[in-house]
């Protein structure tokens, strides 16, 4: 469950992170080129600016973690410039566009160096410094309307070094628009010896330098998600068709055809497996990168952080996982930067010096839920409101009308930042905005809950459109329904005596006595809008739980547990709380997936007090008792907690070992004790054809106690009387208005 994988960040991990960073950055840069040129035509587009800003912000952030100092400093200045543009403090002109495009090209060069060498150390520092200087220069006269010749005004002789710029990237088409714009740069192309080193490197790259290695960008193919979706569906269809063919070929006696069908069978299965595999990945892939990121960040920010991660094997679709990576990293970054306080402040606040950051992933009600929880300072709604008003995100009027909970959600608005100071890590107001945009793009949602001084939980929910979950398939009214395994507690089957004793009506509502607790019962047929049918037949109850409430769902039939692929249902059915989605069964028919919280809400039992898995007595004196009949009509009671199972054995199975009666039970030998003689009563004749046995388990030792039958399970405060006290009996008490012997278990099994 908990793992802190500090040592896990080996060379391979780093290489993988870098490779992903490169692929992603290359794609982003291509988009940036287009955006920047488009922006020049339409300098007022805040949307484009915001998008460019985010891209640079992302590259900056990641390069910071990975220790690419040059890249980071370059993008940091670029980001500053973009920030000004975005906030309308500066206007984009051809010159600025040129400067920005140069930054993009330099970033691209640095990425190429990183790809070859794994570091940006060998990059030509002068080129970078020069571009940085140009960007800074553009920033300096922000108040002056014309920042005409920023590079020329720079002290470190910009002219000579500016030249290699076009040389370095001879194959970049983006250089073309550049030439038109930055007049101060282009006209003095004086090649210098220093920058020449870079082009030679670049030239050597495609040559004999590393003939075996393909560049990262070439070795991976990005496939359109729709294409994969189609593949999955087609494979599903193929499998069904195969099943039909296999059925038909069986009786034909055509050996040739049977062989072909078997091949088809094999190939279809493998294809299906392969296609599914291409899509499903455990979230552990993302978790694996977290310890490193957290460690580096903690060091950088002077925090102490203890990282906990759960749910590594929560599988979700590849595309969803991809889309989730960025936002999760961002949220983790935020937790460290804004959430968890520096150690001295934590100690002052009476907390442990090391903050706790926990990442949990799980499937819940047909969704993947990822929670990022820190025990940091929390989010102060008042401060959020102040900032939001100051930034013009909302008006003071609006803020006054908002609940604290709503105020906290303001951090998701574009252009918002709660950090008092803009740090290098996060807090320029893009973070949460980007997070929400990215999560909503994949149909998910994100919300925050925070308590000032105690911490913040960020909950990301992603639909399971393509995820596979285990589910119990049940039958009702001739149709099949799937209940997600995550909601399942246990299955109970009641018939005859147990049914009559166990199920009672309380004010018209059925409840089940289950090990001393009352469990509300809901008939699935009623939940589905059908008539409530009272049958005397055996009752099958699926005990389910959701949102902390627990209830029993009465169903007709239980089929089996299956891995199902959750599919969305149409708009026409979105309003139905009863279903979480639908799936396709092996025979090609559609089955609905039940939404347990929805059913609980519809049945009006969503506020039932949750039964704890290990129920504690309501008051200290109350104890769950198993009430038995012994010696033909006498009542005795055992503490329920001492009993692990109830069993029935054929008397013929009882064997002897020494003086003891034993029975073979679960690959072992179970010694038997007859309760009646042990508590000084005469043993009754065997009435049924089965021996009723209560299995008591203590200290790894099992003993079977033979009784007449189980009468009931009650939870009651026992007032023990000394009456009837004898060997094997502690005394007696009134249980359900009848005098009942309280069995001294230790004495009984100790014989």
């Amino acid at each position: 469950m908990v793992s802190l994988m500090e040592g896990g960040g080996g060379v391979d991990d780093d290489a993988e992170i870098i490779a992903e960073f490169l692929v992603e950055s290359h794609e982003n840069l291509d988009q940036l080129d287009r955006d920047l040129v488009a922006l020049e035509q339409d300098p007022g587009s805040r949307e484009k600016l915001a998008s460019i800003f985010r891209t640079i912000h992302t590259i900056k952030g990641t390069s910071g973690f990975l220790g690419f100092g040059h890249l980071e400093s370059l993008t940091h200045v670029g980001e500053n410039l973009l920030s000004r543009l975005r906030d309308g403090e500066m206007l984009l002109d051809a010159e600025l566009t040129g400067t920005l495009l140069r930054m993009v090209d330099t970033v691209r060069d640095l990425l190429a160096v990183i790809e070859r060498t794994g570091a940006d150390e060998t990059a030509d520092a002068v080129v970078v410094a020069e571009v940085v200087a140009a960007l800074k220069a553009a920033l300096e006269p922000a108040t002056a309307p014309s920042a005409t010749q920023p590079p020329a005004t720079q002290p470190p002789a910009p002219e000579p070094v500016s030249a290699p710029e076009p040389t370095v990237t001879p194959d970049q088409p983006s250089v073309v628009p550049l030439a038109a714009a930055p007049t101060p740069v282009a006209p003095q192309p004086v090649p210098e010896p220093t920058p020449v080193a870079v082009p030679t490197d670049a030239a050597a790259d495609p040559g004999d330098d590393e003939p075996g290695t393909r560049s990262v960008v070439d070795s991976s193919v990005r496939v359109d998600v729709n294409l994969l979706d189609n593949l999955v569906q087609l494979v599903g269809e193929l499998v069904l068709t195969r099943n039909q063919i296999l059925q038909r070929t069986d009786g034909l006696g055509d050996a040739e055809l049977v062989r072909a069908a078997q091949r088809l069978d094999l190939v279809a299965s493998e294809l299906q497996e392969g296609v599914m595999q291409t899509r499903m990945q455990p979230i552990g892939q993302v978790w694996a990168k977290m310890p490193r990121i957290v460690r580096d960040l903690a060091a950088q920010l002077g925090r102490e952080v203890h990282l906990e991660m759960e749910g590594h094997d929560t599988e979700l679709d590849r595309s969803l996982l991809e889309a989730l990576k960025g936002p999760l990293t961002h949220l983790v970054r935020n937790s460290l930067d804004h959430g968890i306080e520096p150690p001295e402040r934590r100690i002052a606040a009476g907390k442990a010096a090391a903050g706790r950051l926990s990442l949990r992933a799980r499937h819940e009600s047909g969704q993947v839920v990822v929670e990022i929880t820190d025990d940091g300072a929390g989010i102060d709604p008042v401060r959020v409101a102040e900032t939001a008003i100051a930034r013009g995100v909302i008006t003071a009027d609006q803020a006054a009308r908002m609940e604290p909970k709503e105020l906290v959600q303001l951090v998701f608005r574009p252009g918002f930042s709660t950090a008092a100071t803009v740090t290098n890590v996060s807090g320029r107001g893009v973070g949460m905005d980007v997070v929400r945009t990215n999560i909503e793009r994949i149909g998910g949602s994100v919300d925050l809950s925070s308590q000032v001084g105690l911490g913040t939980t960020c909950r990301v929910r992603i639909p399971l459109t393509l995820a596979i979950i285990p589910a119990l398939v049940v039958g009702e009214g001739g149709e099949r329904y799937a209940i997600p395994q995550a909601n399942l507690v246990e299955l109970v089957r009641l018939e005859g005596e147990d049914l009559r004793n166990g199920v009672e009506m309380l004010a018209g509502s059925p409840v089940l006595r289950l090990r001393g607790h009352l469990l509300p019962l809901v008939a699935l047929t009623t939940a589905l809008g059908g008539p409530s049918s009272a049958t005397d037949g055996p009752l099958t109850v699926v005990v389910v739980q959701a949102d902390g409430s627990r209830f029993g769902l009465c169903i007709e039939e239980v089929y089996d547990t299956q891995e199902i692929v959750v599919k969305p249902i149409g708009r026409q059915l979105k309003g139905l709380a009863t279903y979480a989605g639908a799936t396709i069964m092996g025979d090609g028919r559609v089955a609905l997936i039940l939404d347990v919280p929805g059913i609980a809400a519809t049945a009006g039992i969503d506020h039932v007090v949750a039964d704890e898995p290990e129920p504690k007595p309501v008051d200290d004196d109350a104890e769950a008792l198993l009430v038995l009949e012994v010696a033909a009509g006498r009542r005795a009671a055992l503490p329920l907690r001492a009993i692990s199972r109830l069993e029935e054995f054929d008397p013929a199975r009882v064997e002897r070992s020494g003086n003891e009666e034993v029975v073979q039970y679960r690959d072992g030998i179970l010694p038997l004790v007859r309760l009646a003689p042990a508590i000084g009563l005469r043993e009754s004749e065997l009435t049924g054809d089965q021996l009723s046995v209560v299995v008591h388990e203590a200290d790894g030792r099992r003993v079977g106690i033979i009784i007449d039958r189980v009468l009931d399970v009650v939870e009651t405060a026992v007032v023990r009387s000394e009456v009837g006290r004898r060997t094997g009996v502690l005394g007696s008490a009134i249980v359900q208005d009848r005098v009942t012997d309280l069995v001294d278990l230790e004495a009984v099994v100790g014989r």
Partner: protein
Amino acid sequence: MSTTVATHQYCTFWVAGLHFGVAVDSVQEVLRSQTMTPVPRAPEAVRGLINLRGQIVTALDLRRRLDLHTDADESPEMNVIVRSRGEVVSLLVDRIGDVIDTSGLELQPVPSNLPVMVREVVHGVLTLPDAILLVVDPDRAVDVSAAGEPNNGGTS
């Protein structure tokens, strides 16, 4: 109703004796009777879900959707699969007709004395030489949020 300007071809079908048409470009395909999974508590017009090559598609009984009644006992079974706002929905109809080219004909307003439910879904009529074609707007046809009471599985 600018959508109809360019459309001349209609996929036609019958529901409760009425002749309907949907512009061919919003029809994906036409299928025979499919295995149907009923959806308890769904709006009445929803007959169930079908598996269309791995995609789960809602099937709407157009007779119920239009609140049209006939003496026919059996429910409509033919599926006209239409695309609407990014979703695929099946309209269950009694019988499939031809694809009709209506070039030269002008879409006329729906007579105002038709039942409300029909007027809600039909956005114009075309007077063919031998019949009147009611042109269905698929977007409106598949919108059942407003139409029909919840189907409580026939009881209580």
